[in-house]
């Protein structure tokens, strides 16, 4: 049976949420990870979204962070302002999990623009922007990033969200609590050195080599062994976990782009004439 790196990424991300923790989940992989954590090893976790749905228990993946229909009721309904002040700024959010596109070696994140801010070149891409990322990663007690398609860079094209800033104690000097704890990618999990706050490879996905990861990272990447730690090997998921994820959210198993193409072709299937009638 084959499975995708994206699926392993979701299942690995779910494990970052410990039972009893309060976790803010962002768009994409984190929404599925948060819901799966709650369904599996962390039934007492409190999962919330930026849109103010607090203590959700999704029966399938949320379409976005304002999708109450993916759960049957929830405990506490507030607005975005309450989420950022009474919950996040007051330190009640143990962690936030956010999907990102570009990250530097100190865990600072760009989710605004790839390339030039003025979009001079054809290759420049305008991304969605901060959304909730800046303050979530800026103020939650811990941050876990998931990076499905993006990549680490030497220098960010735009600093959307502060990580460990320039490393060392620079984040604390700026008066910010928390900080990035892990970056989950298609190759494995990166963590941050306690002293320098530099991102290093902490665990490796199956069928993946350190060389592949080095090729993915533009700077001279340190790995767990450089800090006297063991480079963990992530074990493949079991069949039940993958099957559960595919019922919960079928898209990760076939990639979002292919899923969206299928969606775009779906209406004629329900309509007389079937798919062949679709122009």
């Amino acid at each position, binding site marked *: *049976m*084959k*499975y*995708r*790196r994206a699926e*392993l990424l979701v299942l690995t991300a779910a494990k970052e949420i410990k039972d*009893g*923790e*309060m976790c803010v989940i962002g768009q994409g992989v984190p929404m599925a990870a948060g819901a799966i954590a709650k369904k599996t090893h962390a*039934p*007492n*976790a*409190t999962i919330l979204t930026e849109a103010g*749905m*607090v*203590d959700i228990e999704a*029966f*399938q993946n949320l379409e976005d962070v304002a999708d*109450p*229909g*993916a*759960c*049957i*009721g*929830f*405990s*506490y*309904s507030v607005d975005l302002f309450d989420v950022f*002040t*009474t919950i996040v*700024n*007051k*330190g*009640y959010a*143990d962690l936030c999990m956010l999907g990102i596109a570009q990250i530097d070696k100190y865990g600072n994140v760009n989710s605004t623009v790839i390339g030039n801010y003025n979009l001079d070149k054809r290759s420049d891409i305008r991304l969605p922007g901060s959304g909730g990322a800046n303050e979530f990663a800026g103020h939650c007690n811990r941050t876990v990033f998931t990076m499905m398609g993006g990549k680490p860079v030497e220098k960010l094209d735009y600093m959307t969200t502060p990580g460990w800033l320039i490393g060392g104690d620079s984040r604390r000097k700026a008066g910010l609590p928390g900080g990035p704890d892990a970056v989950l990618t298609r190759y494995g999990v990166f963590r941050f050195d306690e002293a320098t706050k530099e991102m290093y490879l902490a665990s490796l*996905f*199956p*069928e993946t080599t350190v060389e592949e990861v080095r090729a993915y990272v533009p700077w001279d990447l340190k790995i767990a062994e450089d800090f006297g730690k063991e480079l963990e090997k992530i074990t*493949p*998921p079991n*069949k039940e976990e*993958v099957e559960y994820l*595919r*019922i919960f*959210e*079928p*898209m990760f*198993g*076939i*990639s979002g782009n*292919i*899923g969206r193409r*299928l*969606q775009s*072709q*779906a209406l004629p*299937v*329900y309509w007389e004439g079937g*798919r062949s009638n679709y122009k």
Partner: protein
Amino acid sequence: MNQGSNKIMPLTEAVAEIIKDGDMVVNANFLSSIPYAIIHEIIRQGKKNLTGVSCSSIEELDQMLSGGCLSKIITSYYHRAGGKTYKRELDRALKDKRVQLEDYSNFTVMSMLMAGAMGYSFVPALKSVKESDIFRLRTFKGDDKIKTIACPFTGEETVVVPALNPDVAIVHVQRCDEFGNAQYWGSEGTVKWSALAAKKIIVSCEELVEHEKIKRSPFLTVIPGFRVNAVCVEPMGAHPSPVAGYYNHDNLFRASFFSFAFGQAANEKFISEWILDRKDRKDYIDHYISRFGQKPLEILKVNEYMSDSVNMGYKNTYWRGDFCDEIALTREEYERKTEELGELEL
């Protein structure tokens, strides 16, 4: 956070464990649904040197003062009725210098609590307060009572108040689940910001309900379970103040209390009879019935005016049997795709 743990405990235990001598205690309710059951337990346990905070206080602070619990008060309104000769415990306590009171306005007390609840160190308030003695006269809060700053955008002089984070909030609500998700409706007053400003929260409720009931109306939850430290089930816990949907003001009882409170002796008699000599709220209600009968309680009954329920809704699942509606593929077609697109081997 604490979701999943059962927070129900007897009120005696909650007050003993959570409220310490010297604490700042905020009454989160505003005129309505006053947490009298909790306040009476605080008095019975003889808590000392508390700072009492209440945006607008009816008799709750006066009772705590009579019980010797308060050394400081932060409020903006301290109810009095009974003509020129009427003296509350507050009048005697201020004269004897047994208590220090810092005068604010409702809005400034509320603003301080809101700043505390949001995790800000201060917030702007409205300008009018600066033109009053509320701004000019200060007791124990001193310089830190209210200040002005220049708005960094317009340069305009702006009144600001500091965050207030009481040690404990006490609050009475209609219903709550075992996890502490507290639902309150009616006049919202100061409940949300006062409760959320506090470091610990004791909730008393008219009714304990199943979590399922909470989930059906999450917009009625004013205090989320993860913030609550104790849930105490106290029917009639706000008497003689009203609780929307449960009971009305007991004006006859309050009028009796005022007449008792004309003098210190009468006040002390009330405090012993209705607070110190009562074991708990149930005993208080039983005592009420034994003194006045059932009839006065029947007068308090509310008429029914049910809220219209709304459809919270939820979706169909992606998969209907072996067919995925979302991408219009059969299970077999989907599995063929996952085999084709899979990158790793299981």
